[in-house]
C-alpha cells in the first residue's frame, strides 16, 4: 500500500507546489496603453458589413465618416471640410479635407467616398445599412465632382440622410477588385482614423496603435487593447482586478463597485427606452380605455426604484431626455399611478369583476401573457413587477420569457399576431426619425409589430423626414410624441441610465453623456 500512498502524496505535493509557484506570478499592472473590452468576438471589422455591436468596437478609432457626432450629440464635419444644401433640399455637396492619408499611406479622395456608398447600394453586398442611402425605395446618387468634392442627389428632401453620413468611409484602392465578404481587409482594416489596426488574436484581443499621420489632433495613447470577454460578470471581475480599464456597471453591482478605490464611476442618460408594447389587434387591447387603464395601473416610480436601483428616469414618451427633440414638460401627457382610475376605465370599457376578482367581458376573462427576452435580468424583473401590478387591477397575467430569436419570430409572424403584450426596449440614435417603429406601413412585417395605425402620426412621421429646419422638426416631433403617448400603443416605462466604471489612471475623459466617456479618444491618456 505504501506505493499507492506515495502516489497520492506526490499528487498533493504537485498541486501545492503549482499553487505556490503561480501564487507569486500575477498582476499585469505594467500596461502602457488603454485596455478596454468587448462582450463578444467581432464578426468582421468592415463597418459596412457589421451586424453586431462587437463588430463596431473599433469603428470610431480606426475609421472616419464624412460627418461625426460631437459630445453634444450634434453633427459636425469629419472627413468633410464643409457641406451645403441646394435650394430645393435635394442636392448636398461635400467639400473634403485635403492631405488626409489612409493608414497605408495612400491619399484619401472623393473616389473613396463614392466607392463606399456604391458598395452599400450594391445588391450583392450583404449589408443592413442600405436604408441609409435609399429614400422611398430610390437610391441616393453619389458623384465625385473632382478629387475633393462629392455630391449626393436625393430623390426628395430627406432629413435623416445627414446622420447616415457618419458612416465610415472605406479605401477604394484596397477594395475595388476584391470580394467584400471574404477579403482579408475585414480582419485587417485600413482606415483614416486616429488609430491604426495592429493585430487581432482570435477570441483574445484586438490591438490598435496611434497613427502618427492622422489629419486631426494626434492621440496621446500609444495603444488600445480590446480584450474579448464574452461573459459580462467576468468583464466586471476583470475591471475589479485591474485587467481592464473600463466596463459598464449593472445597477445591482453599483454599490459594491463604488467602494473600490482604484475606480471612478460615471453616470449618464442613455439613448434608449423600455416599454410594454400591446398587440393593438387584440380584442380587448384594441380599446384605448383598456390600455389607459393599464398605464394607470403600473407604478413606474417603483420600477425605477426596485428594478433600476434608482438609476434611471420614469418615461412618458418614445424618446430620450437627452435627445434634442425631447419636448418641454408641459407637452408631455402623464398617466400617473392610480389603480382606482384603472378600475373605473375598465368598467367604462364594459368589463365587470368576477368572483375571483378578475375582470371579464362577454364571458371572457381578461387574461394577458407578457413576453420578454431571456438573458436580460432587468427586463425579466420589470416584467415580473408589471405582472403583479396588472393582477392588482384585476387582469390575470402570466409571463413567458423567450430566447431572443424565438421572440423575434413570434413578433414578426403574419397578421393576426398571436402575442398579447411584450416588454422590450428600443435603442435610438441621434436621429429622431422613428418611421420604422410607428408608421402603419411597417406592419405586419417590420418594427411596428404592435400594429399601431394613426393617420395623423403617419403624416407627422413623413413631415419629420422631409423637413430640414431643426426648429420646425423639433415642433413636429413634440406633437408626434404627445399624440403617440395619448394613444397608449405602449406604456413607456423608463429611461435607464448607463453607469461606467473607469480606472483612475485614465485621464482626459469626455463629459458624461451618451456619446461615451472616451468620445474624444485623442485627449485620453494614462496618468504616469
Amino acid at each position, binding site marked *: *500500500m*505504501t*506505493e*499507492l500512498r506515495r*502516489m*497520492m502524496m506526490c*499528487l498533493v505535493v504537485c498541486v501545492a507546489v*503549482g*499553487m505556490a509557484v*503561480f501564487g507569486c*506570478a*500575477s*498582476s499585469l499592472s*505594467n*500596461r*502602457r496603453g488603454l*485596455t478596454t473590452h468587448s462582450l463578444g*468576438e467581432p*464578426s468582421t471589422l468592415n463597418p459596412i458589413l457589421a*451586424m*453586431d455591436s462587437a463588430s463596431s468596437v473599433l469603428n470610431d478609432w480606426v475609421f472616419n465618416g464624412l460627418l461625426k457626432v460631437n459630445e453634444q450629440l450634434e453633427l459636425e464635419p469629419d472627413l468633410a471640410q464643409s457641406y451645403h444644401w441646394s435650394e430645393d433640399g435635394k442636392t448636398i455637396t461635400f467639400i473634403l479635407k485635403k492631405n488626409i492619408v489612409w493608414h497605408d499611406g495612400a491619399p484619401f479622395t472623393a473616389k473613396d467616398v463614392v466607392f463606399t456608398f456604391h458598395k452599400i447600394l450594391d*445588391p*450583392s453586398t*450583404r*449589408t*443592413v*445599412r*442600405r*436604408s441609409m442611402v435609399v429614400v422611398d425605395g430610390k437610391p441616393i446618387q453619389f458623384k465625385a465632382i473632382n478629387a475633393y468634392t462629392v455630391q449626393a442627389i436625393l430623390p426628395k428632401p430627406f432629413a435623416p440622410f445627414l446622420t447616415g453620413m457618419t458612416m465610415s468611409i472605406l479605401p477604394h484602392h484596397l477594395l475595388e477588385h476584391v470580394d467584400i*465578404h*471574404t*477579403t482579408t481587409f475585414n480582419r485587417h482594416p485600413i482606415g483614416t482614423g486616429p488609430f491604426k489596426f495592429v*493585430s487581432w488574436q*482570435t*477570441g*483574445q*484581443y484586438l*490591438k490598435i496603435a496611434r497613427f502618427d499621420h492622422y489629419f486631426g489632433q494626434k492621440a496621446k495613447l500609444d495603444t488600445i487593447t480590446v*480584450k*474579448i470577454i*464574452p*461573459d459580462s460578470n*467576468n468583464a466586471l*471581475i*476583470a475591471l*475589479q*482586478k485591474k*485587467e481592464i480599464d473600463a466596463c459598464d456597471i449593472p445597477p445591482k453591482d453599483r454599490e459594491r463597485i463604488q467602494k473600490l478605490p482604484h475606480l471612478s464611476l460615471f453616470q449618464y442618460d442613455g439613448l434608449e427606452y423600455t416599454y410594454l408594447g400591446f398587440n393593438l389587434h387584440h380584442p380587448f387591447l384594441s380599446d384605448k380605455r383598456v390600455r389607459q387603464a393599464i398605464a394607470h395601473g403600473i407604478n413606474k416610480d417603483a420600477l425605477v426604484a426596485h428594478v433600476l436601483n434608482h438609476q434611471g428616469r420614469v418615461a412618458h414618451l418614445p424618446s430620450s431626455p437627452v435627445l434634442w427633440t425631447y419636448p418641454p414638460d408641459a407637452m408631455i401627457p402623464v398617466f400617473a399611478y392610480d389603480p382606482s382610475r384603472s378600475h373605473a376605465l375598465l368598467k367604462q370599457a364594459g368589463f365587470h369583476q368576477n368572483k375571483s376578482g378578475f375582470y371579464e367581458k362577454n364571458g371572457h376573462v381578461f387574461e394577458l401573457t407578457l413576453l420578454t427576452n431571456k438573458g436580460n435580468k432587468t427586463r425579466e424583473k420589470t416584467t415580473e413587477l408589471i405582472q403583479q401590478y396588472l393582477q392588482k387591477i384585476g387582469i390575470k397575467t402570466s409571463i413567458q420569457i423567450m430566447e*431572443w*430569436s*424565438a421572440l*423575434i*419570430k*413570434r413578433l*414578426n409572424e403574419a397578421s393576426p399576431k398571436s402575442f398579447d403584450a411584450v416588454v422590450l426596449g*428600443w435603442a435610438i*440614435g441621434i436621429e429622431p426619425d*422613428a418611421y*420604422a417603429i410607428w408608421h402603419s406601413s411597417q406592419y405586419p412585417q417590420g*418594427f411596428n409589430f404592435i400594429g399601431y395605425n394613426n393617420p395623423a402620426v403617419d403624416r407627422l412621421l413623413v413631415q419629420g423626414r422631409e423637413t430640414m429646419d431643426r426648429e420646425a422638426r423639433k415642433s413636429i416631433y413634440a406633437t408626434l410624441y404627445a399624440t403617440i403617448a395619448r394613444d397608449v400603443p405602449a406604456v413607456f416605462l423608463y429611461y435607464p441610465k448607463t453607469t461606467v466604471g473607469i480606472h483612475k489612471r485614465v485621464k482626459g475623459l469626455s463629459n458624461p453623456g451618451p456619446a461615451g466617456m472616451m468620445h474624444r479618444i485623442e485627449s485620453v491618456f494614462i496618468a504616469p
Partner: protein
Amino acid sequence: MIAMRLIVKRLIWMVPLLVGMSAVSFVMIHVAPGDPASVMFDPNFSVKDQALVRKNLGLDQPLVVQYGHWLAHMVRGDFGYSYVTGKPVVTSFLERLPATLLLSVSSLVLIVGITLPLGMYSGAHPGSWIDRLIANITLLGLSVPTFWLGMMMIMVFSVWLGWFPSSGYLNPDLSEAGFLGTFLDRLHHLILPLFTIVIASLAGLTRYHRSGTKQLLNEPFVIACRARGLSENRILFKHILKNAALPLITILGLELPALMSGAFVVEYLFAWPGMGQLGIASIFSRDYPMIMGLLWVGAILLIFGNMLADMAYAWVDPRIR
C-alpha cells in the same frame, strides 16, 4: 485479414451514418427560430435589407436545395465560408483548435492521472473511511454546476487570492516574450479552467476504476496470485493496474470528439478562445455553415474514435481477438 474487412465494413457504414446525421441536424438548426439575417433586431436596419441579405446567402431557397448544396460541397471537402465572418470554416477551426487541444488534452491527462490511483485505492479498500471520503468529494465535484464552480474558482483564486488571471488565454502585453515566458504565461492562464473541468469530471472515472478494481480482486487469477504468496501491492500494480486500465481505451475513444469540440461552458466563462466558444457564438448568430462544420467534424471523430477503440481493444486484450 479479418481486421481489415472489419475496418472496410465500418468505413462503408460511415457514409449513411454521416449523411443521416447531417440531414437531421441540418433540418434541426434551420427549424430553430431566426437566421443569420434576423438575429439583428434594430429599427435602423430595414426589413428589406435583411431580406436581401437572406437572398444573398441562399436562405430563401427550399431546405432540400440548401442541404443538397451544402452536402455537394462537403463531400468535396469544402466546408464553405462562415455566413457571419466570411472566413473559411476550416480556417476558423484551425485558429481555435490549439487552445481547445491544450485545455482538453491536459485535462484528460490529469483526470486519468488522478482517478486511476483514487479509484484503485477505493476499490482495494471498499467501505473504508478514505473510500467514503473519495466518493463524497468526487461526487461533490459532479453535483455542482460547472458554471457555478468556474465562477467560484474565479472568485477565490483570481479575485480574493489574486493568484491567477480571471479569464483569457494569454497576456496581450507579453507578445514579445521568449519561449519560457510564453509557456509560463499560458500555464498561468490554463490552471483555473483546467481545474474547473477536472474537478467536475473526477466522479465518473473514479467510480469506474473503483468497481473495476473491486471486481478484479475476486477474479481467479488474483486469488491464484494471492495463493502464490504475492504481496497485495504487487498484485495491485503488477496485475490489476493493467486490467483496470483497459476500459480507459473505450473512454478515450469516445472522448476524441469531445477533445476537439471543446468545453462550451468553461471556454465561455474563462474567455478561452477554443472551439467551444466558437460553437456558442455560431449557435447564437445562427451561422449555419459553422455549426454544420462543427457537427460534421464531431460525428467523424466519434465514429473514428469508436473504431480505433475497438481495434485497440483487440490489440491489447488477446481474448477479444
